[in-house]
């Protein structure tokens, strides 16, 4: 089996003929529904028209003006439910405009030619600290640099881009592409990134507060949540984010497991199932507590698992990971929903054998670190409360955006919130 082929990009780069014909189809809608559906409100009909009239530079500028991670977003956005889902062609049963790939066509060209996007103004003598070099942090940094602030990003890991690098499925975007865009932006905007710098305790915070005019929190979410069942700590039972990070940073070249059970019904569970199948597992079983229609995953992500060869079982809840030191199977109990409540069906337990279990039931919030910030309001579900039009938290010196605020959405949301916070900080410091 050819693992490399399995991981071919599902949204490959367009060639110039494809871009010409596809851009020709766009209607240039008024108050375009695709733009309305884009969280960063990219002027889609404009950039498509620019591609069509061979003004690729203009197209890239249009995209980056609204979205600093235009290239990454073109590849990883769930376009089926965003811009492309809103394209008027859907109503005619004509395929929607391939917006994501057109976007990529333009931005890829900009990155390769090191297009000059903006003139950075002279330093205005104020510095901002950003914690976390994920999509939210990078976006905030670009926005602030375009206003002339000095920007220092402190990143716990040894590379940028957060989950866009460590989480997003490899057949959506390659690591090289993710890193290339951040490097392009760093050269363009000139922000500093300090790696292996986890900002953790009160002293770190106090230091930053003393040195910087404002601080942006773009720390995302933490590791995978535990499901709190027996046997969960066995070898070969992993959390999804850890499992994915592992295969993204040290790509597996040999089939690594015979039979994989994936627990969960969200997009991350779908990613794990698809990726395991593509990596050569003989059998992949997706197990979800509720019915198929209750899964939070997008339909097209579920379709990908099926295309890759994964099977699924519904209405089964895991109650124990069985086996000696290593996981050898999962014991499930069947479930049903009665009056909106999930109930176990008694005496319906059964075991499915396996040699790897991946728990994709969510990510924890990084609350311990946040409690070190005085006066920072965190809501019931552990997300930072912010003013949505400025990204400002209850501690006026702190701003936040991305997964840490929205609880875990998409890269494009993090980019938007980072930019809003960048503007918010500027307004706050100008007052």
């Amino acid at each position: 089996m050819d693992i490399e082929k399995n991981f071919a990009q599902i949204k490959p780069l367009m060639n110039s003929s494809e871009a010409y014909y596809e851009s020709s189809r766009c209607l240039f809608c008024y108050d375009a529904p695709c733009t309305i559906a884009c969280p960063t409100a990219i002027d889609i009909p404009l950039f498509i028209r620019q591609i069509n009239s061979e003004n690729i530079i203009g197209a890239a500028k249009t995209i980056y003006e609204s979205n600093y991670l235009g290239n990454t977003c073109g590849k990883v956005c769930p376009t089926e439910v965003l811009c492309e889902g809103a394209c008027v062609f859907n109503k005619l049963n004509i395929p929607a405009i391939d917006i994501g790939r057109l976007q990529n066509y333009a931005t890829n060209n900009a990155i390769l030619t090191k297009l000059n996007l903006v003139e950075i103004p002279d330093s205005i003598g104020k510095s901002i600290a950003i914690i976390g070099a994920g999509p939210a942090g990078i976006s905030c940094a670009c926005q602030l640099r375009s206003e002339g602030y000095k920007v220092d990003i402190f990143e716990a890991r040894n590379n940028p881009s957060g989950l866009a690098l460590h989480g997003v499925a490899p057949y959506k975007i390659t690591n090289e592409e993710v890193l290339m865009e951040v490097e392009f932006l760093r050269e363009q905007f000139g922000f500093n990134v300090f790696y292996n710098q986890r900002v953790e305790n009160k002293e770190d915070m106090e230091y930053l507060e003393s040195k910087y005019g404002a601080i942006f929190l773009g720390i995302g979410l933490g590791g995978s949540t535990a499901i709190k069942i027996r046997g969960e700590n066995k070898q070969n039972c992993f959390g999804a984010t850890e499992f994915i990070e592992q295969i993204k940073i040290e790509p597996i070249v040999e089939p690594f497991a015979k039979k994989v059970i994936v627990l969960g019904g969200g997009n991350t569970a779908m990613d794990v199932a698809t990726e395991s199948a593509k990596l050569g597992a003989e059998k992949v079983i997706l197990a979800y507590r509720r019915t198929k229609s209750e899964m939070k995953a997008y339909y097209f992500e579920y379709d990908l698992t099926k295309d890759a060869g994964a099977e699924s079982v519904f209405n089964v809840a895991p109650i124990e990971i069985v086996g000696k030191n290593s996981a050898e199977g999962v014991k499930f109990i069947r479930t049903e929903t009665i009056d909106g409540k999930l109930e176990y069906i008694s005496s319906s337990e059964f075991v499915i054998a396996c040699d790897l279990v991946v728990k994709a039931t969510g990510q924890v919030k990084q609350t311990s670190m946040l409690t070190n910030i005085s006066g920072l309001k965190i809501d019931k579900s552990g997300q930072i409360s912010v003013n949505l039009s400025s990204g400002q938290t209850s501690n006026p010196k702190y701003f936040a955006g991305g997964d840490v605020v929205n609880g875990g959405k998409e890269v494009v949301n993090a980019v938007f919130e980072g930019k809003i916070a960048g503007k918010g900080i500027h307004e706050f410091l100008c007052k």
Partner: protein
Amino acid sequence: MANLNINFAGIKSPNPFWLASGPPTNSGYQIMKAFDQGWGGAVWKTLGVPVVNVSSRYGAINHRGNKMVGLNNIELITDRRLSDNLREMEEVKKHFPDHAVIASLMVQSKTEWHQIVKDVQNAGADGIELNFGCPHGMCERGMGSAVGQEPEVLELLTGWVMDVAKVPVIVKLTPNISDITVPAQAARRAGADAISLINTIQSLIGIDIDKFIAYPVVENHSTNGGYCGPAVKPIALNMVKNCAQNPYVQLPISGIGGIENWRDAVEFILLGSTSVQICTAVMHYGFGIIRELTAGLEQYMDSHGFATIDQFVGKALPNIKDWADLNLKYSVKASIDEDKCIGCQLCYTACEDGAHQAIDLNDDKSIRIPKINEENCVGCNLCSLICPVENCITMVRKDDGKQHITWKQRTEADNIPLIFDDELAGGLSHAVRKPIDALKK
């Protein structure tokens, strides 16, 4: 079952589809192949004293994904020896005695004209077409459109040909003139048997904006050429109509210009053409388009009960009138089929910015279907033309059909606006917003 045979000024052809003189009729090989596939006739690539061509000869315009909606060329007449062409012509006629082979000619002196006419007749040509149309390269030497633009010269040269012609003579007209009926009448006066139109339109297809050279590029330079293909059809249709309606022309017409499918051909026939000629579409898609052309034409004739082509030649002509004879009381208004509308709002922005501000958006932005403001709608058609959904915006008749008054009648009745601030101004019936409203968001 429809009969596609035609008799064009004495030239018989199994169907009205002829290859126009150009690259597809450059050789006997091509013409035989075309006849074999079903073409009814061919006008041989213009013969004369052979030329020398440049390299890089064509330029095209594409429109939003469609290649070559207009083609421009700087090629001249044949670059092959006359004897080779004549030999091949004889061979084609031997294999296809019932197909129409027409020799297109362009020479200078009276002697040359007399000689070449006799030569092609001896080779078996069923007819002769005089190329008075080529708008580049040849006209500078006093041939082609230089002739077509001078009615007296055209008449003189056509006369020379008529002196010796034993087969029907067609004069091919250039569109590079303000009134096409003037050379058409000259052809008639000279005794020509038919006219064909249009030849290519003098044009510059575009510029390489980085190198500052027009297309097609010949080293570091370019030159103007002749324009043809789908984009020129409306111009050709109008000229065909003008000739067909002119009482002093009254000659059979071979219609040319932008024909690509059977519908285009039917349009030319309805305006008075008996045969049609096609060049660019063959250069684009090959001889194989004949299958669609004949099948479509047959189907059309059967569905309308036309047994022969003659029965509908010119059938649309009586319905084309002067503007002053149109009914000013006729009134249509746009109507949107809400079930079909996809909410692109192109109609809104077209009417708002480009017409009469007669389409409104819903205050609730989530409802994307626009609304026609009938009071302001002047019935211009614009929205229905740009709507991307078939039959979504239709123009619905609103007058009762009982009233009829034309500009001519109003003029006669002294009922037309005459001064700048006349109360009879047509636009007074329709509300125009105040300029300052444009700046209110």
